[in-house]
């Protein structure tokens, strides 16, 4: 077991955790956050691929840096939509879930 393997497995587990959170989430802010968890799990996996065999691969790193910044901008847009939705409807969940409950 080497360190990159450890981080790759962590990344894989983070993706699973994030997906579970996304499926379970009802509050919209929680959805945005769990979606970010999936994304960063993928970044960790990709970063571990770049670090295999004591290597230093700049291409995954460059992709991850742009990915992190884009993830932040997408989250900001999503959060803006959540706030606008809540302002219009008075709730931070989608209507179909309220019918379920």
């Amino acid at each position, binding site marked *: 077991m*080497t*360190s990159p*393997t*450890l*981080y790759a*497995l*962590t*990344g*894989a*587990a*983070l*993706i*699973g*955790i*994030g*997906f*579970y*959170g996304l*499926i*379970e989430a*009802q*509050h919209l*802010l*929680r959805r945005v*956050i*769990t979606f*970010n*968890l999936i994304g*960063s799990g993928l970044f*960790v996996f990709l970063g*571990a*691929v*770049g670090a*295999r065999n004591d*290597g*230093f*691969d*700049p291409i995954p*790193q*460059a992709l*991850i*840096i*742009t990915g*992190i*910044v884009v993830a*932040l*901008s*997408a*989250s*900001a*847009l999503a*959060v803006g*939509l*959540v*706030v*606008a939705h*809540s*302002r219009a409807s*008075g709730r931070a969940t989608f209507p179909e879930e309220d019918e379920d*409950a």
Partner: protein
Amino acid sequence: MTLIFDAMLCALTLGVALATVLGCGVFRTIVFFVVYGLLLSVAWVRLDAVDVALAEAAIGAGLTGVLFLAAFGKLTRIGVEAEPSPKRFHLPAALGCIGLSGAMAWAWFALPEPHRPTPDLSDALPRAGVENPVTAVLLNFRAWDTLLEGTVLLAALIGLWILTRDEDWHHRLGRLQHVRSGGVMESFGRLLPPVGTLVGVYLIYIGADQPGGAFQGGTVLAAVGLIAALAGLLRPPRITECSWRMALVAGPLVFLGAGVAGEVFGVGFLTLPGSIAEGAIFIIEVALGLSIAVTLALLVIGPPEGGDSE
């Protein structure tokens, strides 16, 4: 010993991620997500990716926290009811997600052995004009990606501004920030930005040779600007202000200009010949760093909200 450290860090990261997902209450989720970002920036250093760690430190530990906490505050002021009900544990969903993780783990062991650094890349690096291979990839070899990425940021900001209510359009972005004059928050807002600006500019400057560059420095500058804005010392602009709009598009515009120049001089669109690559990359980095900083700061500040109309 380092393996024990890695194992501990991974275990802690997974524990915090689980707490983010399973904890009741959105506030607890946000707090654990900020802690998660902090741990991740340590993990990037261990994965030999200092460039990524620099960006993650400014974004994960700073900007996302402010973004989600501010949104949480807005939702509670709107009067949104608390998160519905403690959730039941869904076994099928959990099993499916475990299967997904298992598939990813299998993919890791099934991946072919890499040849590193790839022969093409090690041939090309001396012609890139910069010492830092990550900067070389970002601004020279894969310049297309980076140019489009700058455009995506701009698109996200425009999308966010579209959500503005009509009556707020001519107000300043975000909420009106006010602090006690001479208070702790104001002093903090005066002390930190000079140091932070220095660090951000330094990161952009050294990006050619060492870990750093437009993205890393830009995120640092964005967080610095956010601190100054929260302390009420830097008033956010209005959407209609022309100079700020220029700052938003400066990076993509300069980048595009360099790309067109490459086409005109017959080396191909977005191709930087080795002789001028160093200077061109530096100019692009400065412009792009500025644009990233302004765009990210304005994205976190959010659309204009007028006074206290809620």
